[in-house]
């Protein structure tokens, strides 16, 4: 068979040790839960071990050799990320624990000062809980209102709604996910950002699903804030990123108080540190930030255009294959160019949870449940879906085996 893939997947697979894992004794692992977290290449795992084995030290505050090496490596990742998303400066990159904390940082440090009684925050029905709950909490505290842009069954947004809210002159923040983690729908955020900016409204982009899977350019899209997680893009757990435009960041009040985010502390007053350190308190997750640097290197070497192309190809093949299985309902856009490689579906009356258990028998890891998007599930009148999501190391053969396992599950459930 001709290799016409955008990526050299068989070469890539060699870099991921977990893909040699067997499940249930002898089944090769087929990992299709990439929207939840991705696997890690050797280079990332080694970067972490190498740090601990050779130059582990606290950073920023010491002058000994280990501290200097660790500080340089840590700050290097900040520069790599700035380049990766095309930020103007590394000072616009703040490290958090995960995308969730990044969104909360905006809610504590920016929104609490800029959103008051009667103001409106606009989000959408496709949001992940991480982009809902912080705004509910803020709304309760400040008597601000949270409005949800409606989506149709495929996850396409209502721009009519959006315009109507923007016209009200009460909106202070728009916060949307660039890609749905359930339906895969890619949201036309450039247009949304432009419309908000025309009204002087700030926009936060939840890039947790987009940044790992497609080229993202913060200057081009012109968002004010963007949040994403290392662990969804080959990096370690425990590291998230908040990008903030420098002129906004300069005016934000601190979030977590403590060491490293200060310049001078006196009994009755404190001078905060320069950007971005003002927003990183206490000993950072040094090892994993360094590990994340290796993940960025890996993705840069492949190229994000090629990643996106591979995923379009996989999505197209998976949708085509799924459509042939009796009783399957697929959610989200049918056009693979409008979506990421995240496919939610149901099959007959098999509950997704039960399906996941049966898939696991065959070594196949898929996700089931509400995917931290219960508002969307309510909207679609579903209590749960099954979800298969792909990344750079997945193959068409794996999709074939996934389909075989589905057929097998139908038999067990006698449908």
């Amino acid at each position, binding site marked *: 068979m001709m290799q016409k893939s955008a990526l050299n997947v068989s070469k890539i697979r060699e870099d991921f040790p977990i893909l040699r894992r067997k499940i*249930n004794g002898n089944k090769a692992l087929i990992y299709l839960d990439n929207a939840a977290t991705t696997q890690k290449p050797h280079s990332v795992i080694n970067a972490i071990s190498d740090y601990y084995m050779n130059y582990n030290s606290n950073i920023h505050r010491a002058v000994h050799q280990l501290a200097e090496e660790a500080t340089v490596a840590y700050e290097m990742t900040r520069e790599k990320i700035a380049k990766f998303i095309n930020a103007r400066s590394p000072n616009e990159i703040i490290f958090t624990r995960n995308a969730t904390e990044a969104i909360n940082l905006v809610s504590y440090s920016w929104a609490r000062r800029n959103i008051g009684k009667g103001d409106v925050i606009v989000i959408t029905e496709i949001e992940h809980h991480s982009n809902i709950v912080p705004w509910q909490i803020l709304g309760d505290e400040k008597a601000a209102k949270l409005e949800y842009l409606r989506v149709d069954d495929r996850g396409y947004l209502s721009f009519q709604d959006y315009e109507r809210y923007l016209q009200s002159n009460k909106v202070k923040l728009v916060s949307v996910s660039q890609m749905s983690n359930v339906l895969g729908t890619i949201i036309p955020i450039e247009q949304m950002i432009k419309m908000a900016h025309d009204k002087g409204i700030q926009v936060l982009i939840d890039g947790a699903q987009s940044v790992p899977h497609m080229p993202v350019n913060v200057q081009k899209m012109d968002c004010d804030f963007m949040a994403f997680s290392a662990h969804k893009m080959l990096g370690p757990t425990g590291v998230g990123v908040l990008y903030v435009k420098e002129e906004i960041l300069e005016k934000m009040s601190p979030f977590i108080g403590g060491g490293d985010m200060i310049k001078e502390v006196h009994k009755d007053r404190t001078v905060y540190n320069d950007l971005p350190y003002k927003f990183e308190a206490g000993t950072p997750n040094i090892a994993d930030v360094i590990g994340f640097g290796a993940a960025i290197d890996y993705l840069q070497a492949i190229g994000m255009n090629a990643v996106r192309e591979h995923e379009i190809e996989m999505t197209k093949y998976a949708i085509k294959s799924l459509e042939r299985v009796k009783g399957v309902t697929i959610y989200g856009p049918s056009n693979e160019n409008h979506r990421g490689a995240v496919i939610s579906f149901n099959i007959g*009356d*098999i*509950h*997704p*949870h*039960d399906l996941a*258990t*049966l898939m*696991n*028998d065959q070594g196949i890891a898929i996700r*089931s*449940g*509400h995917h931290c998007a*219960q508002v969307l*599930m309510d909207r679609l009148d579903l*209590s*749960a879906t099954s979800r298969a999501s792909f990344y750079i190391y997945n193959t068409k053969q794996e999709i074939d085996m996934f389909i075989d396992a589905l057929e097998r599950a139908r038999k*067990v*459930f*006698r449908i």
Partner: protein
Amino acid sequence: MSDDIYREIILDHYRNPRNKGKLTDADVTIHDSNPLCGDEIDIHLKVEEDKIKDIKFEGRGCAISQASASMLTEMILNKPLSSVKNITKDDILENIGLMNLGPARIKCALLSLKVLKLGMVKYYSDRDPVAAKQVRDDSKLY
């Protein structure tokens, strides 16, 4: 292999749940959900002379959670509270015939028991605080 989880009897209770519905004259109604998967169970209890006089459940979720709820209602209908109070995790797993569930799926199987225990805490809370406390402590175990 999980084929033996989805035996005929589980699929039957899943597709034809017993005692499903509401009780309008319930002494206690209680709701809980499994954050893992969003499975939900409501249990309605009617108590008379310290016996479970009637029980109904509503819910949505996987075959294991729904079949387990259905089988639980059959297990305790007309049973004295004193014995229902002491039902354990293992009693349930034995009742549904699934002793080998992993840590995630076991939560599905035990959701209805958790809801039942929370209901009994509610029932006892005014009537018998000591029993309420005992059941509450038990219900923290899963």
